[in-house]
């Protein structure tokens, strides 16, 4: 059971991931913009972040940068969940510093265990 922050602006994707992960016993926190996400990170101290790269208001890449430049011990796993599919996008996002890359649509069979593999 972990505190997971879900940064995603599409309400149905948010609902899907929330139901899926809550069902597996995790505690979900949600944000729809980068600003909201920053506040949540301060208050909730999530153990893992799922980030839609294309969120409005500054975008996920800047948010990732923000998370990565904070002081340790906040080396929190940040996983990209994105509609940008293809090897080219995967490589680019991994280079940016995401810990993993999931392209939409996710597979509900493997998503849970895959996310949990990043939790200590």
């Amino acid at each position, binding site marked *: 059971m972990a505190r997971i922050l879900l940064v995603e602006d*599409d309400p*149905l*994707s948010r*609902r*899907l991931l929330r*139901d*899926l992960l809550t*069902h597996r016993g995790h505690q979900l926190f949600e944000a729809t913009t980068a600003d909201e996400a920053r506040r949540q990170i301060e208050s909730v101290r999530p153990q893992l972040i799922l980030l839609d790269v294309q969120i409005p208001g500054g975008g996920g890449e800047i948010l990732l940068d923000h998370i990565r430049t904070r002081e340790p011990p906040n080396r929190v796993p940040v996983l990209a969940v994105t*509609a*940008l*599919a*293809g090897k*080219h996008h995967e490589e680019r996002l991994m280079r940016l510093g995401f810990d993993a890359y999931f*392209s*939409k*649509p*996710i*597979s*509900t*069979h493997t998503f849970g*265990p895959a996310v*949990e*593999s*990043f939790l*200590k």
Partner: protein
Amino acid sequence: MTVPLKILLVEDSLDAAAKLKLDLRRADFDVQWLRVETAAELREGLKGFKPSVILSDDELPRFSAAAALRMVQESGLDIPFIVLSETAGEDGAVEMLKAGACDYLLKGNLARLGEVIRRELKGVLTRAERDDFDAALRKTQKYLERTQESARLGSWIYTLDGSQPMIWSKETYRILGLKSDGFDGNPETLFSFTHPEDRERVSEARQQAIRGEVAYQLDHRVVLRDGSTRWVHEEALVERDQSGKPLRMVGSVMDITDLKASQFKSKFLANMSHELRTPLNAVIGFSELLEQEMFGPLSPRQKEYVQNILTSGQHLLSLVNDVLDISKVEAGRMELVREWTSLAQVTESVDRILQSLARKKRLTLKLSLPEDLPDVFIDPIRMKQVLYNLLANGIKFTPEGGMVGLSVCLEGSQLHLSVDDTGIGIPADQLSRLFQPFEQIRNRAGGEHEGTGLGLALTKSLVELHGGTISVRSEVGKGSSFQVALPMRTAALADFPVELETRDEDLILVVGDDAAACELLARHIRALGFAVAVAGSSESGLQLAGELRPVAIILDLQTPQIDEGWAMVKRVKNHPAIVNVPVIVFSVVPEPNRALYLGAMDYLVKPQTRDDLIECLARIGVTTYSLDGLRVLLVGRFNADLATLATNLRDAGCHLRATTRLDPYEFPQQPVDLLVANVLPEDDELNLGAAPDSLPIIRIVDLPSAAAGQSSKGGAEVLRADGLRPERLVRLIKGVAHGIEPDALTSRAKLIAHLRASILRAEGESKKVAVISVRLPQARAASILEWIAAVKTRLRPEDFLALAGDNDLALVAYGVDEDSAARLSGRLKDLLWTVGKMRPSRIDVLWYPANGKSAEDLMLNCDRTDPSEARP
């Protein structure tokens, strides 16, 4: 000097004729004569005799000089016509000259005749030259217009001080939708065509170019008089006087509307495919959750409905994926990742997926491959997609109880794949549209066959990216047969100097038609640690580039072939498989802008030096292995091998000294960085033991020392047959001399330690670890390992290869799946064959956590695995 001259004389008097002959011979003319008296004779003479000069008497009984002149003029021939008169009559003379005679001379005074004839002949010659010149000019102009028309490229010249009107080529008018007289030469008129939103940008670009800051080069829109918008690409050079003052702009304008449209289309398709993923995420995700009954049970009917949604969602997803792939192909961004692949492995995984589909339809699905099929150089993922699409297509269109099959055969240099079904077949009139995107064949048994309509189009593109072809035969009611022919790389390249089977170095392709220049360049490149292939024409260059996947292409352009060279740059950039290979242009013509515009990454004006080459490769991100300044001591008997070695090392920038036998006392005086020993079987005493322990040694040997029973001290060993290849040698030395200790030179203890660390990590990350253990036929593991380490380019950098015993090697691969483990063991097998010409007696793959929970367990299990369970 005697000038041969053909004179036609219009004259009735034989005496007068004889006198003329004499006069002209005196004037040094060598004359051929034809004398005529009548119009009919003259007509005949003009045709048959082909005179160069006509002399005409002005008074003839049955003819006149004036009539004769008219006839000559009407014939259209350019022959000087000189009138000779008995009497001096001002009027007659003026009249004849007016009518077009060249001169009017008195028969009594023919002193000037020779001079007049010479003058007139010269005039004829000049006129003929001018006509030829005019014709050539017209031809060139026509050719230029045609070329501009076909390229949709217009040109213009703009005099900056406005002293001359702006000049446009015909194509410029056509691009702007104007007639040739629709332009007043005012540059502002041209500007008025520019799209209002682009005007500022264009104007700024022009000013910057005139100020000499940047080249004038931009895409912008133009609005034609009919209101339509087109995209053009403009480029121009600014001509300056000696003080640098700008005089003229000479530019080109190209209609790129179609290009832009296809760029927009590809971009649109890619965007659409991304956009559709978000709703699909909900459709597929929620129906999966329902179907798993995660939040409560469903009634049988609800479950059926959910499955319908799910199937449709997945179908939609495959469509979206195909659209993305198609957009990549169309944008030229689809890249193949080719590797040596076992086709059996590709077909096996396709078989696994499709058997269940075939069973559901009660079809027989049979995939048959010849047993001795060699590995092929293909992109395994894309080839899987090709076979999957064709077979799934066959299954889809074959009724229950039918058969779908794949058969493969190798014929000469081609691999033939045939996918046959006993399905409903395709009407002949629809066959040609089959491979076009979105061309779902309709009326195939009443619309029950939903498909993406993209699968076959994509399949065709993927086959073509592999250099292959696809075709189809079909009979309605009987079935269809799809034939794929792929070129096999090995056979196609038998003539080329590169030994592909053993290539482990990166390769640079040199294209140029001056063999000597290319060979010199190739030598420089080899000395920087690269394999080289040389192509003599752009045609073979393109083919080689597709097959060899070089890290860079160097075009060595000679002046006469410059245009072919430009075309080659362009074609590389339009070639989906190699579009990302950087192209460097070497040329005597300083036209870097053009090269860069066409897509070249770098441009060097010849003659280029070795340093230029190194810098240039560094700029495009290719690491070179220069050994500049490395002090090497060559040890051994001087023979041809040592001479080759010395040349190669000198080419690579080493400082060389040579000695036949090592003398320990000379080290303190003359420091060296590396010893290269030419170990010959008959020379048992090179005294290598005298070298300081810290000094790296490379031994060039015929046989590996473990097999020869010698003990070896640090450093590396390299086979003579192989090690003399400069590119191999340079990489090896770079590794050894600069103390790049390859991971591989490790013992079993290090292996266990690494495996432990991997297991620990895998435990935390829920990953698998594969241990690929290789049993060698002889106890040569240590030396084999050294060689592999020296050429370690074909294993993934994160893989750890180590010694597991006297005749065992083990590769620890972290976080791989079964497919990639199988690929890795295949590569390992290749590598063993390449470096040691040996086939392993066994290859086992063990997994953490399936086959053992600790490093020691796993290694023990490796040793114990029953050979019958081994997965080669």
